[in-house]
């Protein structure tokens, strides 16, 4: 599987270019790569051809959301927040860590990480009433 490297700084501009070139957003895959690091792989499709962009991120480092550009991204970004604790800024619909969990649960946990990193504070979501 071939992937292209991308950084937090170039992510939005590159995705804007992909959108103007006719690509559609497919999904994001998040992987834990170390005690303090994660990897985000962005998958896009055009005419049944996939392209993959790989980005190294630090846990607890907020990432720009793709949802203002691709509305479909809001769901997977909320899921990644629930499972890996990655915060996305400018999410169009922010569940604040409660996409799957209840407000009563420990939503500062990161259940898909072997090396959990507690969130500094309980976030406030707008998605779940």
């Amino acid at each position, binding site marked *: 599987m071939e992937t292209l490297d991308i950084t937090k700084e170039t992510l939005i501009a590159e995705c804007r270019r992909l959108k103007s070139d006719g690509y*559609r957003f497919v999904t994001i895959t998040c992987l834990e790569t170390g005690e303090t690091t994660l990897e985000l792989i962005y998958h896009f499709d055009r005419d*049944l051809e996939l392209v993959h962009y790989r980005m190294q991120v630090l846990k607890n480092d907020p990432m720009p959301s793709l949802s203002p550009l691709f509305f479909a991204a809001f769901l997977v970004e909320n899921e990644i927040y629930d499972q890996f604790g990655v915060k996305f800024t400018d999410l169009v619909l922010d569940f604040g860590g409660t996409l799957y969990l209840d407000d009563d649960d420990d939503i500062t946990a990161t259940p898909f990480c072997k090396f959990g990193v507690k969130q500094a504070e309980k976030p406030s979501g707008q998605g779940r009433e």
Partner: protein
Amino acid sequence: MSKTIVPFGPQHPVLPEPIHLSLTVEDEIVKEAVPAFGYVHRGLEKLAEKRDFHQMIQVVERVCGICSMIHAMCYCQGLETLMNVDVPRRGQFLRVIWSELHRIHSHLLWLGLYADAFGFESVFMQFWKIRERIMDINEATAGNRVIVSVNQVGGVRRDLSPSKCEWILAELAHVEQEMKDLESTMLNNYTVKKRTVGKGVLTQEAAYELGAAGPTLRASGIAQDMRQLAYEAFDELDFAPVVETGGDAYARGVVRFRETFQSIDLVRQAIARMPQGDTFVKVKGKPEGEVVQRVEQPRGECLYYIKANKTKFLDRLRIRTPTFANIPPLAAMLPGMELADVPVLILSIDPCISCTER
């Protein structure tokens, strides 16, 4: 007119599975729809770290019962790519046969539920009665009605005898005729059209940009189907995506109705062209590397990402299911619709919440 928030679900007569929608309405018109999940989340992806990669076949089959065979097929395809395994040609044809049978029974299940959602209960019973023939085929060929569990890394665990193939073709002839008997009712009936035509319209541009998948995408005029990737034996079968251009709930129903006939045709083609030979190859070793695999489930594109490290446990298994892709289009199609149309529109994407949450 002041806004009112109407909670829809998680328990609702039209919902086979739990999902919640907060509907902001003015008068009877939906202004905003915010989905909420978390009622059937099982963390199955995480389980890949604790079950070996062979055991995970049985786990991914349980992501969703209705398309269990296709989940397992996609997962096995990914591992076969990582392990450089070539599935015997007969095994590939058999996978096509069982996967298309799954598509037929999924669409028949949905057609029944859909009819029930707009109050056509006699049609609901007719579709489910037809579906029983497919369930009988599953049971006779694989031992189970729903989770057939035929896939293994390297091929399939069961074969079909010539007499069994003859019987399948005879049963499919009955299914086809019974479907034709319902065609006029399902596609031309005044009540059906009144409840579905012009409801929840997704334009071609919106469907593409919102990432819609499967019949929801094709009903908006986009001819995209993962079977065009020619996985398994699809490279030898005559196939073109079923496309409608209405973009509404009616068009989504028509696509699934026509796809049922198409799947019957694909099973016939596969049985006619299936060569003799082995159904699987023995696989040794452990997978290493990462791969993305895609297949077309009854509800649309399904993507598996697998990362393996040459141990019996996978580093990461990620599953993007079609309903997950169809939730944003659903949230976008509801505003502007009447509250009474919401149940029909939710069903029009054929939601599978077990898939969505995994």
